């Protein structure tokens, strides 16, 4: 395979490895594809051959959809796994990768592609919902429901407006809130699709979800002072209200709020927006 073929299959590789030799570039490109095609928990069956005559919509960063099954058969899985861990050390391409998969799901109702999304996100949503204090059986039901909603609405996904992870978080959060209020008044939270299609002016390509910003957000989370990180986690991962945090930590309510404010401002800067 010539170098430009590898680029065509996994175009982002070029951008990551500008200084790498062509040799490295090629093997890296191939092995990433192999490794991702055999994500943990997934059957080893190769996905259906990719149809170049009617490619799915281009993703916003301009990458071509990729991964014809035949192109990867020459690479040994072991080699691929080693490469993979290095390549995935960089979080940003993940958002791009997921949006590529979603484009293929949207274009072809590709179940194999969708199951890769499932294998990555379903256990994480499960952890999130268990952290909200839900019983395991109910958490699992909500995970399945959230993933099914994602599948149903796959064609409404627009990577320019939100990452797949953000959209799934909204779906899971809204389902969780609705489950708490079963039969009570309608939700005060807008539907996730409405959120996804919010004004172009505010959430465009330069908006907070521009892909490169996710690297910055990850770093900003890691760099939070312990106290701020703790309150941010209690808020998001345990849904603790400001008053509950205040009671639990014996911390004045005003301090809880000012700590969260500072943390949010830092993370917002990490995302690339002002705060």
């Amino acid at each position, binding site marked *: 395979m010539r170098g430009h073929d590898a680029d065509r299959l996994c175009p982002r590789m070029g951008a990551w490895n500008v200084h790498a030799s062509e040799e490295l570039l090629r093997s890296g490109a191939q092995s990433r594809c192999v490794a991702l095609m055999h994500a943990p928990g997934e059957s080893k069956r190769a996905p259906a051959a990719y149809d170049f005559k009617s490619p799915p919509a281009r993703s916003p960063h301009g990458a071509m959809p990729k991964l014809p099954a035949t192109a990867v058969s020459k690479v040994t899985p072991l080699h691929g796994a080693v490469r993979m861990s290095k390549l995935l050390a960089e979080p940003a391409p993940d958002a791009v990768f997921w949006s590529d998969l979603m484009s293929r799901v949207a274009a072809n109702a590709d179940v194999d592609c969708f199951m890769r999304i499932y294998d990555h996100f379903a256990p994480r949503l499960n952890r999130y919902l268990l952290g909200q204090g839900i019983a395991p059986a109910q958490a699992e039901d909500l*995970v*399945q429901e959230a993933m099914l909603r994602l599948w149903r609405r796959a*064609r409404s996904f627009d990577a320019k407006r939100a990452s797949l992870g953000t959209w799934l978080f909204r779906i899971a959060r809204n389902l969780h809130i609705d489950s708490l209020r079963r039969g009570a*008044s309608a939700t*005060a939270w807008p539907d996730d699709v409405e959120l996804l299609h919010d004004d172009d*002016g505010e959430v465009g390509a330069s908006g907070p979800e521009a892909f490169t910003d996710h690297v910055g957000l990850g770093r900003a989370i890691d760099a939070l002072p312990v106290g701020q990180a703790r309150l941010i986690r209690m808020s998001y991962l345990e849904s603790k209200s400001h008053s*509950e945090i205040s009671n639990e930590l014996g911390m004045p*309510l005003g301090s*809880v709020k000012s700590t969260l*404010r500072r943390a949010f401002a830092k993370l917002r800067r990490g995302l690339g927006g002002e705060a």
Partner: protein
Amino acid sequence: MNVPVRHLDYATLVGYSAGALPVAFAAVVASHLELCASCRAQLHAADAIGARLIEQQEGAPLSASARDAFRARLEGVVPAPPVVIPEPAPVDPDLLPTPLRPWFGERYSTLRWRAVGPGIHLLRAQDDALGAQLLMLRTASGKRMPMHSHGNNELTLILRGAYDDVLGHFGPGDVADLDHETEHQPVTSHGVPCICVAASDAPMQFSGWIARAMQSVLRL
């Protein structure tokens, strides 16, 4: 730390994004978001933060049969056509913000206000699921409200009219995101009556015995 005046406090945004606000507060937040593009952009960032935190965690495995069961469910379901969000209809000034309608109804013109004092009308949402007080208040123009502070948190959204207090001038769409540190005495502007919706997680505390007597009658 500069707190945005007339917009949502960042701590409130984080709580809303995390699903950690009492429903009464969430309803007021959602009503403001309907009117305020800059807070919507901030919420987008807050949601991205939540998503990142969840993705950073290690997953908890689902039960052994979950994956196959899910795959089987997919086979029978076709993804729906892309959702088309309709162009926003011309704003009907009589309509309440969507998030408030479950509790107060659709239209200002059909609200059944209860007089609670000279020039002051009140509507209280009745719903145990709210987790805090949610009320609408209509105050005649040019009126001075009793001096008060707040037990814990109070979030007020101005829907019509305007008022002034120590924090400045508040007009339609503005929120006042206050805690117990703020004591204020809003004075409504001349012109139309001021209509607000407020969520509060503890009774207001009035200074002065007349106001306190009024409070015991009104259960404010």
